[in-house]
């Protein structure tokens, strides 16, 4: 919130002035009120492995994270460039593989990757779009300085928190929205539905029918699946509601089977079709891939998009962006050591206490080592894992992330954050002005994942 001279940074000016006039006890009471609001609404997520407390709230911090319009424009351009490159990359590796032929990416890195689906080779998804919804994870290290942490091109989650956080803030502090011009985010469900419907498959006649596919009420993000379906006004379906009838994917309704044209699936590739992928999957729809290839359904995001946000591919993103857009990437990548390369592995092992080491296929902050906060014992144990399967890991330096203020009992305190803006791709790229700001609630911590005790904040992009 403050600059080096201890004055409020420009986008925070109005907020700061307002904050100075507030009674701290009232704000702390408001924090409690927010929590009750979330609990009542049932905005919960499930933590795997905690039988007892299977539903948890993600802590919400009432101080918004504010981004100036100018900074946002720069960021949005960079994201758009990156998302366009991701789609071009996917189209290429499932067709001509120019980037491999040009020697920019090793062939085995693609073809031996679990996220690469041979079933997608030579197939063009409706509209040529692979990543309908992207949630790019970004960190800010200083004025106008952004790094992309991850591209999240398969099934980015958390957008319901972006919407509910804003809803909660407007309910609790309406006056703040009078003194700040905050760009709205609430159109997201409407835009999502339009965007999905605009990519209906060739076999669809009439108004496209959209549905959200969820693994069910025990999935950690079930609340979000139900929320999005509800806000879009489309059916929320499970695999058991669907079957392939007469070459179409249909859902079992109270009046019989009715066709679905666009499926926004929140089920992983592996589980999508037991006839094509994991045969033991009970979450998918047997035969959906045949319907897909026949042009009778759109699957969003397309199967096989995971190859583009794979952590091993990540380190090649600067090359990928340049290869497909002809320009240098506007957003920077965090320098990344691929432990599969001998020199890199050596460096990583020697500098373990300074680095963050992640599993190539991991997510949610599991299975990672944060060197600077890990004990010697933890580092040593991790080194063994690293040596046993080097190609399973990448390492990155810990960036000096910028901090934003959060509300604590004593007042406000700085914490590290990241930012996940949401991007919709159809015949155009739409970036919602805002996103999910995740905050590491523990002092000094760099891990923002909700499964590891992170919280969220409302994210404001100002109109200026």
């Amino acid at each position, binding site marked *: 919130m403050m600059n080096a001279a201890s004055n409020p940074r420009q986008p925070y000016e109005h907020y700061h002035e307002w904050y100075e006039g507030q009674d701290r006890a009232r704000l702390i009471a408001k924090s409690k009120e927010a929590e009750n609001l979330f*609990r*009542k609404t*049932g905005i919960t997520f499930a933590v795997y492995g905690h039988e007892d407390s299977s539903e948890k709230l993600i802590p919400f911090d009432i101080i918004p994270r504010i981004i100036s319009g100018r900074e946002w424009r720069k960021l949005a351009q960079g994201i758009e460039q990156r998302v366009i490159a991701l789609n071009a990359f996917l189209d290429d590796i499932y067709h001509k593989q120019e980037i491999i032929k040009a020697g920019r990416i090793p062939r085995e890195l693609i073809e031996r990757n679990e996220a690469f689906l041979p079933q997608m080779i030579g197939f063009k998804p409706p509209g040529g779009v692979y990543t309908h919804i992207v949630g790019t994870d970004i960190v800010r290290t200083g004025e106008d300085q952004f790094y992309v942490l991850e591209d999240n091109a398969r099934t980015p989650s958390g957008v319901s928190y972006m919407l509910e956080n804003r809803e909660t803030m407007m309910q609790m502090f309406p006056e703040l929205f009078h003194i700040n011009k905050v760009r709205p985010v609430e159109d997201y469900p409407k835009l999502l539905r339009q965007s999905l419907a605009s990519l209906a498959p060739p076999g669809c006649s009439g108004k496209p029918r959209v549905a959200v596919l969820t693994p069910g*009420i025990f999935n950690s993000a079930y609340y979000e699946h139900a929320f999005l379906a509800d806000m879009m006004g489309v059916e929320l379906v499970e695999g*058991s*509601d669907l079957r392939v009838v007469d070459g179409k994917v249909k859902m*079992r309704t*109270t*009046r019989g089977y009715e066709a679905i044209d666009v499926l926004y699936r929140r089920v992983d590739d592996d589980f999508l079709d037991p006839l094509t992928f994991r045969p033991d999957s009970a979450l998918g729809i047997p035969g959906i891939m045949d319907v897909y290839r026949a042009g009778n359904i759109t699957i969003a995001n397309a199967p096989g998009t995971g190859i583009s946000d794979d952590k091993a591919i990540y380190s090649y993103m600067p090359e990928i962006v340049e290869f497909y857009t002809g320009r240098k990437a506007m957003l920077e990548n965090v320098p990344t050591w691929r432990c599969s390369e001998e020199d890199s592995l050596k460096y990583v092992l020697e500098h373990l206490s300074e680095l963050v080491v992640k599993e190539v296929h991991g997510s949610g902050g599991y299975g990672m080592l944060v060197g600077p906060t890990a004990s010697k014992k933890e580092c040593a144990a991790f080194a063994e894992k690293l040596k046993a399967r080097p190609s399973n890991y990448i390492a990155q330096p810990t960036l000096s992330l910028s901090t934003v203020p959060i509300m604590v009992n004593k007042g406000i305190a700085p914490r590290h954050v990241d930012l996940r803006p949401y991007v919709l791709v159809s015949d155009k790229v739409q970036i919602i002005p805002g996103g999910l700001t995740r905050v590491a609630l523990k002092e000094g911590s760099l891990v923002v994942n909700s499964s590891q005790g992170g919280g969220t904040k409302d994210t404001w992009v100002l109109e200026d």
Partner: protein
Amino acid sequence: MLGRTANGLYWMFRYIERAENIARLIDAGLRMALTRSGSSDEDWDGVLQSAGVREDFDAVHATLTSADAIDFLLRDRANPSSVMSCIDSARNNARMVRTALTRETWEATNECWIELKQLLSRRAKPADMPEIIDVIKRRTGLIRGAFHGTMLRDDIYNFSRIGTFIERADNTARILDVKYYVLLPAIAKVGSSLDNKQWESILRSVSAHRSYSWVYDGDYSPANIADFLILNDRMPRSLAYSYDKIVTNLGYLAKLYGENHAAHDTASSTMMLLRSRAMEDIMEQGLHEFIEEFIVHNNRLGEEISEGYRFYR
């Protein structure tokens, strides 16, 4: 609407209705215990039977005590019909059909679950019972209020209502099934004070002890009590009233979907049965047999609805 959604709504409302009915049965049981001298374990046997969980209870408990019976009915997760189990199931179903519910209905259901989970986290002390019963009634009442006040009157509403009334009819019929002997004419002639207590208990377990006096002018007789619970179509927990609602809601579905199912015939013929006969007539031919037959029909109707509207694959 998805068949699974119709199924979820139907069961969500069956479970809410059941939770409320179980609370009412416990309330009547507690009342009986207060107004009689000596042991009341026998009364709890009747309550467990009316709740349809006597066998389940015996599977977990060697002997019957009132404290165990109350705990079993209130919060034992081993009992799928305990109040807590019902509210759990209702909320799980509500979560599943979240997109079919208004925010108000969902939040009322979620808050009911949050409060009861807290309230029933440990064995209830006798002194806490009035408050607990009160919270259950109030919370389920709030769900009903939110539902009626905010839901669109479409098929979502119809499936929810059908669930409510199939459960309610089942519950009232079960109470009669267990206590029919108190209402038999032969015993009625004896007219002991114990019978009076039993009659009042029956009325109390369907929250009708006040309204009964108004409708029948304070005239307590087995035939009148049976009439009130079975044939009176203005009494909201009677079989006739429940079937009136079931038939109406099934009728809306038939109109909306343009098709009839076996369920429509079954519901209509059961309603005719309740409309065309006088109480004396039913008593004459055997109250117990009538009730048993009704329960069979009611269960069949539930199955036919789930089949007709493709609740399952």
